């Protein structure tokens, strides 16, 4: 086989580029805490009422002696519950775990301008943990087509300082 020496050199560099990309993804994943969601659990989308998703909202939990929060979100045609009618309010600099699923069709759960971006698939629970570093409001967007009024589906996440976090609105 006749391969020009320049082309041999180029192919070696190409392998190097591929290795560099994969290595930087692994580095980000392990050392910079830039994760993606994995497999968590399935759920019956027609009977969400019998699960925690039946009373969606923010819950307080204690893990390893630390106070953390859990947020159960239902994405429905064409709203986030909670998120659309009232914002999801969580404290800054605290671990928050979102559990997201859908009773009807596929939706997206994108916190605009951040790396929090996941699909909400009927029958699957998406689980992701994050820490909001600053107190501000974030827009919440459905970024998967979910029906004729898809474009009105949006919400808000309100991040407040830890000291100002009002625990009276928590779901028990």
């Amino acid at each position, binding site marked *: *086989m*006749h*391969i020009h020496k*320049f*082309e041999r050199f*180029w*192919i070696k560099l*190409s392998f190097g*580029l*591929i290795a560099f*990309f*994969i290595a*930087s*993804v692994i580095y*980000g*994943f392990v050392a910079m805490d*830039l994760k*993606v*969601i*994995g*497999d*968590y659990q*399935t759920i*019956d*989308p*027609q009977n969400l009422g019998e699960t925690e998703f039946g009373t969606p909202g923010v819950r307080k939990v204690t893990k390893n002696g630390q106070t953390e929060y859990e947020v159960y979100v239902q994405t429905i*045609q064409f709203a986030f519950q909670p998120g659309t009618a009232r914002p999801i309010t969580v404290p800054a600099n605290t671990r928050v775990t979102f559990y*997201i*699923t859908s009773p*009807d*069709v*596929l939706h997206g759960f*994108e916190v*605009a*301008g951040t*790396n929090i*971006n*996941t699909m909400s*698939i*009927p*029958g*699957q*629970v*998406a*689980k992701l943990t994050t820490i909001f570093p600053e107190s501000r409001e*974030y*827009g919440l*967007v*459905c*970024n*998967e*087509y979910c*029906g004729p*009024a*898809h*474009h*009105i589906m*949006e*919400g*808000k996440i309100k991040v407040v300082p830890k000291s100002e976090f009002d625990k009276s609105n928590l779901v028990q």
Partner: protein
Amino acid sequence: MTFLHKFPKAAKVSKANFIVAFIALGLGGFFGFIQALHRTGVFRGFFNSGEYYTLLTGHGVLLALIFTTFFIAGLFVWGVTRSLEREPENMTFTWSWFWIMTIGLVMAAVAILGGLVPNGSIRAAVLYTFYPPLQAHPMFYIGLALVLIGSWMAGADWFWSYRKWREENPTDRIPILTFMTLFTMLMWYVCTIGLAIEVVGLLIPWSLGWVVEIEPLLPRTLFWFFGHAVVYFWLLPAYYVWYAILPKLSGGRLFSDSMTRIVFIIFLILSTPVGYHHQYADAGISLGFKFYAMATTMLLLLPSLMTLFTVVASMEHGARQRGGKGYFAWVGKLPWDRPAFVGCALAGIMFAAGGFSGMINAGMNVNLLIHNTLWIPGHFHLTVGTAVALTFMAISYWLVPQLTGRKLKFKTLALIQPYTWFLGMTLMSNAMHRAGLAGVPRRTAEPEFNTNAMSFDPVFGTMGEMKWQIAIGGTILLISLILFLWVITTSWLAGEKSDKPVDDYIPEPLSGVEHTPAVLDNMKLWFALALILVLLAYSFPLWEMIQDGIFEPGALPRPS
């Protein structure tokens, strides 16, 4: 003597496929223009925002599935016939696949456009990914299944010609045009297994009401089993043009026959087990399989980077034969005044840019930065929307004269056309990438926040400037499309008749097939390897998904 005179039967088949492809291109492109104005809010008077998704489905299906498939069929009929020097074996069979595909296309199109009829019962606003539980009219799925079956028969037709040719030429190497065709179709057979199971096994029975519930993740996974390889089904015919024809249009020869074959083999092997890279953000798929998909996706950069080298080296060879010198100056000696060359070359430049955004998409975690944002359509308007579509349009300026025996008319307009496409796409896609980076979602009629007084915060530029670049870019693209259709239609109907309307000779490669190892032509070996890698990627996750029942956990259908 040109193709029409030597192979009149095949020329007729190619022409029929091109006619369907160009009608789909015109209609789908026009929908794209309406969308560009609608979603930017520049003009929303054509349709209301609910109907936007019907147009979006039409745009995606007509361009990504119909225009491509029919154009590719016409191109491959031309290439196989020409390189094996034989007409199709049985014209009844050949015309039957064409008509099956056409009937399927009409069914799907009627189902989609039915959505524009007020209070109509036929709808298919499910976009070209048609994720359930959003449900389209059964005619949509049955139409798609017919297009698929027709495309399988088309592939079988080309294998049939090859078999017959092989009987008469037992020791010859597979001619390169046929080689590229057969490997593209082998890849198509591997990846369409997923689509066939999804559409025929799940969605058709479900849309007819034979089963009520559906498990959304399973069809979505099966779709992406097919859904990334399909982009290579579009791209490989563009590579086919760049490898086989572009070097000659540049005034040179293909740099290396063996590299060409190796690239197509790698695409056959790796195109399908990468599908989870469209599901990095999905629950229900474990990290291990997402990582496997990323590794194979990144490896797929290799054949495209090899193509970059081989194709540019072939063009440089042409430029130097035309008197080009130096490290950079040779570029000026390329025939920048020939529409077929210009279109292919500009398409290649756009593909280099689209290649970079594709690298970001492929990164398992960095993908979340742009997942389902406008960045993604920005990316694939560079790849399928330019690298593929502009190459197809440009090479039509060279192929249609061979198929009709008529010279090209309005050569100046034909020359302006690829430059305008390049300009329109530069405006539109750079703005789409940047808007996506700010978090603006794709697939929405009104991307702005409506009620919350929130706004997107762009990293580069302003939202207003991006909006205008998308609207103006989309308008320029429509003008370019009209120029293309005008030149092709007038040349087809009224071009000057000629025995030799273009120089259709293709010279041998610089490093010819005599240097190419025989193992590269072993189709069974590479096909088997492709199947093994697919089994590794998909058998376990699919098996896991159906453990609780194929349609469980089930969701109810929702109207689209």
